[in-house]
């Protein structure tokens, strides 16, 4: 008897490492982490969707005001290239980087589950991930339908959430509708830059 397993309707998430793929310099990433940790900019209250010792700051204009891009079109280009590849893979119109912000999390802090409404694709660059950090946990969008599931062990078919572990320089790209969160971190100095991307013709 022949049998075949078919995985239908997966949700795409891309991961690439900008250091390993030589799209970004390790030293520059380290300097960026130091800069963001010491940045005295006030936290943006609209972006405080977590709790604990953490700060989220909005970069109003990614291209002109932030340290990241002033010296570094390379990073912007790398992110836009990954966004294009993701859009191509999921068959959607091409998108461009829109708004972005950075988050510094210290021990015990966490970010609640959320999604990025009014956007198409979003992503997170992991600038500094000390030991005890966590990547991003994505929430299973099909759980709501599974009222009769009783599982022995969690699998990709049944898991309530999937934690993507990451390292310095990793870039995650995912659909904006996909809910995600950060479990409580067990270290100081977890630094990320997150961003939204939208169709360029709407901007």
């Amino acid at each position, binding site marked *: 008897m022949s049998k075949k397993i078919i995985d239908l309707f997966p949700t795409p998430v891309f991961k690439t490492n900008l250091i*390993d793929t030589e799209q970004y310099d390790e030293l520059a990433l380290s300097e960026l982490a130091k800069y963001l940790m010491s940045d005295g900019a006030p936290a943006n209250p609209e972006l405080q969707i977590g709790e604990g010792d953490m700060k989220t700051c909005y970069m109003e204009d990614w291209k002109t005001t932030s340290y990241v891009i002033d010296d570094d079109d390379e990073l912007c280009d790398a992110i836009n290239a990954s966004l294009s590849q993701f859009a191509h893979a999921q068959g959607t119109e091409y998108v461009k980087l829109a708004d972005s912000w950075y988050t510094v999390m210290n021990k015990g802090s966490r970010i609640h589950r959320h999604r990025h409404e009014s956007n198409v694709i979003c992503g997170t660059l992991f600038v500094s991930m000390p030991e005890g950090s966590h990547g991003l946990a994505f929430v299973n969008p099909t759980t709501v339908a599974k009222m009769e599931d009783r599982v022995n062990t969690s699998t990709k078919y049944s898991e309530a959430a999937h934690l993507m572990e990451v390292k310095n320089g990793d870039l995650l790209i995912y659909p904006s509708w996909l809910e995600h969160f950060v479990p409580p971190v067990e270290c100081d100095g977890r630094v990320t830059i997150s961003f939204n991307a939208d169709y360029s013709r709407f901007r």
Partner: protein
Amino acid sequence: MDGVHVTGQYGLFPTLVATYNLLDHPAYSKIVTEVNKTVTSQHSIMKDSESTYDESAGNNWLDKSYLSDFRQQIQDCVDHYASEYKLKQCFIKNSWMNRVGKGGSVRAHRHEGSVISGAFYPVADEGSCPLVFKSPISMYRMSEILLTEDLYNCYNQEIPCEQGQLILFPSWLEHYTDDNKTDNRITISFNTFYQ
């Protein structure tokens, strides 16, 4: 695409569908004989088609003693599916037969109160309409403007209807058929639940 290096492309939270070819099962001819003598009647979920499904009379098409070997084969497939999914063991409960001819179809539905459901095609003319599953995540994609349809963005996914094939799927997954273009598309459907 030049200059881009994706080191990991993940397809998270897929929905498990499995197919099994039972055409060579020794008891296959008994199933076909039983199909040919089964009386069906119209059912509201189907258009221009007939079924044995009847809540008041019970649905136990597969429970005849002379079909027990074949029923056990289907149960083995259910066990395989549950093992892949890591579900607790499920057992075939109710079962019924559908007869869809030319122009007939099955409206979109799911199987409430069941865990794993199945469709087995004992008789299916070549070119019979496929079983179509509706994406459970398309409702989230209001911001996406699609250029092409692919694995990640499709609204529906068709599984071809082939004689002798068993399809297992989660009972919560909505499914339907378009109009059938052949004279004979016969399905044995069933639901499962825990002990």
